[in-house]
């Protein structure tokens, strides 16, 4: 069954690393690591870093390997080195809990400071980290405007076109011959976009779960799924609705 092409599909675009995501007429590059790059403005967006999730669990007696912050920052460092942004905006839930920033180890603090050097850095408030992180560089805000784009942590039902948010940790599930493949994904409908979680220990939620209802136009959504070394733009009709 052929269907009318969604506007932002950019047919035929097969880039090795990223996929083009159109949001309200702005062309953004969805990077295979899970960051979104506004090439024209030199702005890099990441969502849901969940730094110090490991130590947050350790407080409850679940001793997850204490390397998640280092792993997340290393991945962020790689995409920063590749894109050289003038501004990095972290779309909230940058720390897994309010005390996260204070638990950060010396080496990780130094790594973050090195990433922040020579560029602007904005921490948007998330539900996990509503207050600005103490003792770290960057400025904090509730939302951030970028031309026609509005960046915020939690997508608002009925928000106008141009919203880019995180919070929901979308993943896409695609059926294969004998099993389903589950990958983090950017989800967009051409007017708005929900970014995947970036953090090493951040979980995922199928974008066809009811929690996503009423945010993007159902039936018109495209999942830009993170593959091994490229991003795949997959229509909603090919994504499973399962858990």
């Amino acid at each position, binding site marked *: 069954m*052929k*269907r*009318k*092409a*969604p*506007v932002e*599909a*950019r*047919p*035929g*675009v*097969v*880039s*090795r690393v990223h996929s083009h995501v159109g949001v309200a007429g702005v062309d953004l590059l969805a990077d295979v690591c899970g960051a979104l790059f506004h090439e024209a403005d030199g702005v890099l967006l990441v969502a849901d870093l*969940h730094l110090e*999730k490991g130590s947050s*669990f*350790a407080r409850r*007696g*679940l*001793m*997850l*390997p*204490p*390397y998640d912050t*280092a*792993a997340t920052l290393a991945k962020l460092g790689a995409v920063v080195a590749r894109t050289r942004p003038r501004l990095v905006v972290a779309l909230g839930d940058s720390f*897994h809990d309010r005390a996260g920033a204070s638990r950060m180890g010396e080496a990780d603090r130094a790594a973050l400071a090195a990433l922040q050097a020579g560029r602007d850095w904005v921490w948007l408030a998330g539900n996990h980290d509503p207050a600005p992180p103490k003792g770290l560089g960057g400025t904090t805000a509730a939302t951030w405007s970028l031309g026609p784009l509005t960046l915020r942590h939690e997508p608002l039902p009925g928000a106008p076109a141009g919203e880019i948010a995180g919070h929901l*940790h979308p993943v896409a*599930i*695609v*059926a*294969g*011959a*004998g*099993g*389903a*493949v589950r990958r983090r994904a950017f989800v967009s409908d051409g007017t708005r976009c929900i970014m995947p979680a970036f953090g*090493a*220990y*951040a*979980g*995922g939620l199928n974008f066809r*779960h*009811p929690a996503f*209802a009423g945010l993007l136009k159902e039936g018109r959504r*495209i999942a830009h*799924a993170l*593959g*091994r070394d490229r991003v*795949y*733009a*997959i*229509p909603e*009709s*090919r994504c*499973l*609705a*399962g*858990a």
Partner: protein
Amino acid sequence: MAALPPAFAAWFGRRGWAPRPHQLALLAEAEAGRSALLIAPTGAGKTLAGFLPSLVELAASPKRRAALHTLYISPLKALSVDVARNLGTPVAEMELAIRIETRTGDTSAAKRQRQRRDPPDILLTTPEQIALLLANPGAKELFADLKRIVLDELHALVTSKRGDLLALDLARLRRLAPGVQTVGLSATVREPRELVAYLGGRADPEPAIVTAPEGAAAVITMLDSRERLPWAGHSARHALKEIYDEIRRVKLALLFVNTRFQAEQLFWDLWRINADNLPIALHHGSLDVGQRRKVEDAMAEGRLKAVVATATLDLGIDWGDVDLVINVGAPKGASRLIQRIGRANHRLDEASRAILVPANRFEVLECRAAITAAAAGAQDTPVPRSGALDVLAQHVLGMACAEPFDADAFYAEVTDAAPYAALARADFDRALQFVAHGGYALQAYDRFAKIRQGKDGRWRVSNGKVAQQYRMNVGTIVQAAMLKVRLVRSRGAGASAAGTPTGTGPIGRGGRVLGQVEDGFLETLLPGDTFLFGGEILALQAIVDDEALCARTSGTEPKIPSYAGSKFPLTTYLAEQVRAMTSQPEAFDLPDQVEDWLALQKAKSALPPRDRMLVETFPRGGRHYLIAYAFEGRLAHQTLGMLLSRRMERARLRPMGFVANDYAIAIWSHHDVGSRIARGLVTLEELFDEDMLGDDLEAWLDESSMMKRTFRICATIAGLVERRHPGREKTGRQMTVSTNLVYDVLRRHEPDHILLQAARDDAATGLLDLRRLGELLSRIRGKILHKPLRKISPLAVPIMLEIGREPVYGEAEDAVLADAADVLIEEATADDDSVETEGAGRGQTRRGESRA
């Protein structure tokens, strides 16, 4: 030999029984103060033999103070309930003042508390409950007077991590109750001396072995179908009519299959031809418990004619008068088959009757090998395990909850458990560190430590929450995520066929729960897809929270079939027998169709020799196939397929995919392997070199989904992550963590961590079967027989037919995404003109860039 006390002798007499020699032998061993292993077939009065010494002793001292005298531990809680009922009879009839109680996960909290305060004389329970009791500060007192431990189905317990946990708990019990006697009850095994090690510990290194005479040998035949034998598949549909005719002729037939899917399919197929309306029932572990109990009761009462069952009915519950066992599909192991058949017959003097129904041609060979093995009394039960490190970690925490411990003394106790006898002190200390604060090189969590060493040098839990966490996590059975299957009214085929997103339609949720299904199966279905469950065709309506809402349909054929074969790989022993047959088919009594098949293979290619591995190469449909007849079981073959793919990739043969079954592996590539071998550009020896278990393996482990599954189980057992509790999974994303993500991070940052070691140990024998793959590669070194062919051989047909039915692995995952993405490109380029014009231009530039 011991004599029965008069009251007991009289009771046996009233029943018209005489005590059996092995029952008296166990009594004698008990009087001599020795532990013992009883090897006896079903129906030999094994349970009574195990309890007789306890009953005699308790009857002789009626005025003893209330204390736990005997513990009975079995793998199934249903078995505990059953034994309690059976034991109640002699106790009541002899009017003995002996209190017998069960304790399982179903026992109320109030009753459990009371049992600790005021214990019964005999407590019937499971390994998990023992672990919980031992982790309680009152354990010392509760078990101080324990005299005997009876371990039922020991052969089944010791092959798993549950057996490791049980062994550790036995070591603790021996310390709390010095001199306690242990009695193991077991079916026939390959090597009883290996089992004995579990019983006595250092204090009693040589428990007695009592062997009851085998009952009449089972009469096992293979169904010599008049129908055409299928080349592949596991359904045995060709023989359906013949199976049905056998059922008609007997009183009660038990039909064993290897998987739930096969059970559903067979049950469905039988009912379609059930012209006589015979009462045929279905029993498998995914069905609702209430439904299963109904079937079991109906069986016991003689109201059924046949039951289609999986391994859930495998362990020794009393089933009533089964007079025929039909094993559909491959038996997979000689001992497994004999135990299944033996269980069905509870009368020793009469021979059990069994019919094996092979579902395809290779299974004919396997069935024939199993029948020969059964006649010769050959056993292929697994070799003893070495204790898992994740189980040890769980136990360490449990024992810290019970009371502060000294590490040296505790290490000595742990190594008194058979599977941990060879545990290095360094590994014990790593487990201790892991429990305390994760055991990471980067010691970030000292301040959150769960157990700490006090000034007295002893380890104790940091706070009360730790014990609570331990109780929630106890046990070694880690289930896959399951969804409840709930029956709802259909909201009309139209809506579901259009693929309406789930969770938004007006679907009532009031229906009955039919059972549960793995998340992994359901997530491949779209709303409207139909599948077999509980003997009905259901259509998935929606998945809401942890429930799959399904409606009945009037269809006659489910849309989503399942080809899944046995989850158990073929044992090494049976594999050898099958190889013997293929190398020399004339020496065996095989059905004509199979003889013809093998003769044709001999003419067109070669028969797989006994001491060499046959490899065929041939072109087909634009691809080049390589078939290796390794006969090492599906799991080892899958691992081989992954590693061989990498190796062929490096040799620039451009492999495209592979498929594995129990007997062979087929791998296909873009380039012609056969001709490259002929030209000396590549050799099979290189491709199958043992060094693939080095770097190739390490690289693959990074992304192997089976390795990740193995790691998840280890992480759960060790208490790194919280266990999923069915029905209590309302936790949000932020409350849980995916072990796959943890695995990725840990492998990169601390590859030698104890949990990765635990997962690697499991991979050696579990889902990756590395040990067997290693044995194969070493066995075939310099012994590969290559047959370059122009077309497919008769023996290759079965494996070739399985292509496309197998799950995807590792690198193939991106191909799935790419395929789904292509649809978008097609859709997009086909329609909207304006978009296409703009997009096509950009696309070309992009394509150009990517080529450059």
